[in-house]
């Protein structure tokens, strides 16, 4: 079926089978292989993209259901050769080993920081009535908010450090 996808501010007209997921449309249809296929069943987070401003799993999203919606992938994060602050933080903190989960981790982390800035609670926020504060956010909060992204190399400690460094920079600014 004809499907129009808006990916990283570029509009693409595709002819897709109705079964094609957003993940496969990005990788196979558009050649945007930065979005990774890990488990392909909603368990690992490697396929995380930002859809209309919210982080989602592209492996459980039908491409046809994205008509008219805005997709951001890892390819759309940098500004030319200037890395997004979260990309730079992952490099600086060594937040990866093999790198396969990294695009999903980074997109998820970008949204996690926005959610913290909005003050919304997580499962480990003791009192859901309170707004969380980026300046005092615990490592436990970062780990909970990033729990949808698995890293088989176990780079979690450095991923937490990368997210924390971006949060700290946001607080300073």
């Amino acid at each position, binding site marked *: 079926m004809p499907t129009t996808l808006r990916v990283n501010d570029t509009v693409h007209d595709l002819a897709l089978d109705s079964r094609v997921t957003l993940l496969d449309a990005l990788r196979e249809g558009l050649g945007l292989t930065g979005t990774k296929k890990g488990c392909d*069943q909603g368990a690992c987070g490697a396929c995380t993209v930002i859809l209309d401003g919210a982080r*989602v*799993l592209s492996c459980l999203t039908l491409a046809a*259901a994205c008509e008219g919606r805005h997709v951001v992938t890892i390819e759309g994060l940098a500004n030319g050769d200037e890395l997004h602050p979260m990309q730079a933080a992952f490099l600086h903190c060594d937040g990866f080993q093999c790198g396969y989960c990294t695009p999903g981790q980074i997109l998820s982390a970008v949204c996690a920081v926005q959610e913290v800035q909005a003050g919304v609670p997580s*499962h480990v926020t003791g009192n859901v009535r309170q707004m969380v504060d980026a300046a005092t956010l615990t490592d436990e909060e970062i780990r909970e908010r990033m729990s949808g992204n698995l890293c088989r190399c176990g780079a979690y400690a450095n991923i937490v450090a990368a997210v924390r460094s971006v949060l700290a920079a946001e607080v300073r600014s």
Partner: protein
Amino acid sequence: MRAITYERAVGATDAARAVATRPGAMFLAGGTTLVDLMKIDVLTPDTVVDVRPLGLSSIDVSDEAIAIGAAVSNSQLAWHPVVRDRFPVLAEALLSGATTQIRNMATVAGNLLQRTRCPYFRDVHASCNRRQPGSGCDALTGFNRGHAVLGVSEQCIATHPSDMCVALVVLDAEVRTLLPDGTTRSIPFGDVHRSPGDTPHLEVALEHGELITHVVIPSLPAARRSRYLKVRDRASYEFALASAAVVLDLDGDTIRAARLGLGGVATRPWRAAEAERSLAGRSASDEAFRDAAELALAGASAREHNHFKIELAKRTIVRAFAAAREATP
């Protein structure tokens, strides 16, 4: 995945009719259950009708009730300031489930209609009365550590996986639906999910093509003192082994009324009415909570690997009530 026809709904009644007139059609919302199960051939619709374009994504707050659109995401609901303030049990239940990515996709109606995580249901090579009526149940004598101890039958012991539903059942929510003939009805939340009995494949009391439009939570001032406690194998991103949703209405140290829902241990979102009644008039002590927990699990029936859930659920109930007792209303 089998071939499907994808249709975008343009009107709610048309969408209901589009599904009702085709036995092989299903509604598609967030996709976290349907697309997952289509990939492994557990669900094999020939047509999916995408209901997201219908909107139904607002949360309308009044003094009497909160009306939640069927397509409101689990994140949107959990993060809503009025939900967090008036119904902390619901915000906590939602935040304890899945991950932010999945909560951003999953809708309220989709969460309500999600399917069991029983591994035999999810494996088309296994026997499962819920997936294929009359084929048997491999869970009865198989690896049943995660399975239910309440509301079970000889046909099925699959656990209902939702956290959100456990909160909604204690809040006496109502489910508003649209029928294919254009009429609407309202179903008490506790009547939506069915126990498996002899017909485990009939999971909910909805007609084929009946579209959920809203979930309505009536005002309940006592719910300001409410908690959801979930016990699981991992600290995050895991289904409950046992969970409790509790509401405590206190007059000083005396319980005026209490509500108790259980998750992770039952075949449907479970309300422990007798345990609730036993607490009215008693002092809010751990002893009273333990007595209520004994009543709540009195009818439990375990299999080889899930006997531990009975004691675990009791302790979860006591801890949840104790946390509610200490909470700021």
